[in-house]
């Protein structure tokens, strides 16, 4: 075997090794869902909640998977107002709308008292991994300037069953 052939073999082997490394980065570098989909919520004016998701690069959220509830329910959440997302025709799901980057959703609320907002979202990473529905909560108190997310439930699966059942059928 001459040197040229050996060098060629080396290049091939390095390429194979790099391919294996590339595969690693796909799944091994995945963010935890709370990091991929950073959530916060605040009362921006009486009767209006602003929910904000900072979606990391390479990740996206599905519009039709959001569920918002107030605890107690008597706080009276109205219908969420979403900005237009990215619309795609999906071979499995049909027409889907997704969000990337910064997402701001507004929710009308009747209550003048404090309440806890429970937000369920579901998203995926472009590398081909989807997260189970994620539940994040924020305590919102009128009169306080910021109702930053007080708790983000890392274990999103706890509410999976209910959120899946509540999801409208396609």
């Amino acid at each position, binding site marked *: 075997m001459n*040197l040229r052939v050996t060098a060629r073999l080396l290049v091939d082997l390095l390429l194979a*090794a790099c391919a294996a*490394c590339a595969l690693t980065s*796909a*799944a091994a570098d*995945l963010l*935890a*869902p709370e990091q991929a989909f950073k959530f916060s919520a605040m009362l921006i004016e009486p009767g209006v909640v602003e929910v904000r998701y900072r979606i990391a690069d390479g990740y996206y959220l599905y519009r039709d998977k959001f569920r918002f509830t107030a605890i107690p329910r008597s706080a009276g959440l109205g219908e969420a107002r979403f900005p237009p997302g990215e619309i795609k025709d999906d071979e499995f799901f049909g027409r889907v709308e997704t969000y990337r980057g910064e997402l701001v959703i507004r929710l009308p609320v009747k209550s003048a008292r404090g309440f806890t907002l429970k937000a369920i979202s579901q998203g995926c990473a472009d590398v081909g991994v989807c997260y189970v529905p994620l539940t994040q909560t924020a305590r919102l108190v009128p009169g306080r300037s910021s109702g930053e997310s007080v708790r983000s439930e890392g274990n999103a699966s706890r509410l999976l069953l209910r959120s*899946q059942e509540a999801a409208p059928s396609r």
Partner: protein
Amino acid sequence: MKRAGQIALLVVAAVSALGTGIWLHPWNRAGAPDSVNVTRLMAASLPDMEGKPRALAQWRGKVMVVNFWATWCRPCLEEIPEFVRMQEKFGKEGLQFVGIAVDNAAKVREFAIKYRMNYPVLIGEMDGVELARVAGNELGGLPFTVILDRKGQLIGTELGGLNEQKLTAIIQPAM
């Protein structure tokens, strides 16, 4: 002599690079024994699409591909037709796919019929996520696949989509 030395150096470098690549591969890393509790996974029992409880241990003795998936997970749906094909092709040789759906039964049934799934699908719902965590899937991402040899020893795990080529490379030594 000098030339032989160069060749030797190149070969050593190449082998180390390849070795590093293989070592870094997800199935090796995720497959570290401390992150996967095969015993707990194999002890699990979940209802099938008809609601009958099915113990995972019943497929011991086969090369098992346990795939956690959901109908709302697009990358999960992409790999299922390949699994159906591989079950058809290698089932007689002892390859057994088992799907664990992190989903509800009605949606799973509808999908399974449409895509002619030819292997057992168990309805995991919330328990499916917990079981996937036990099996080493800490982030709760889907699809997630655990591959066991005939003795029930772990031979690979994969977070994210698999295709026939990739999966064949993992199962071949065990077949």
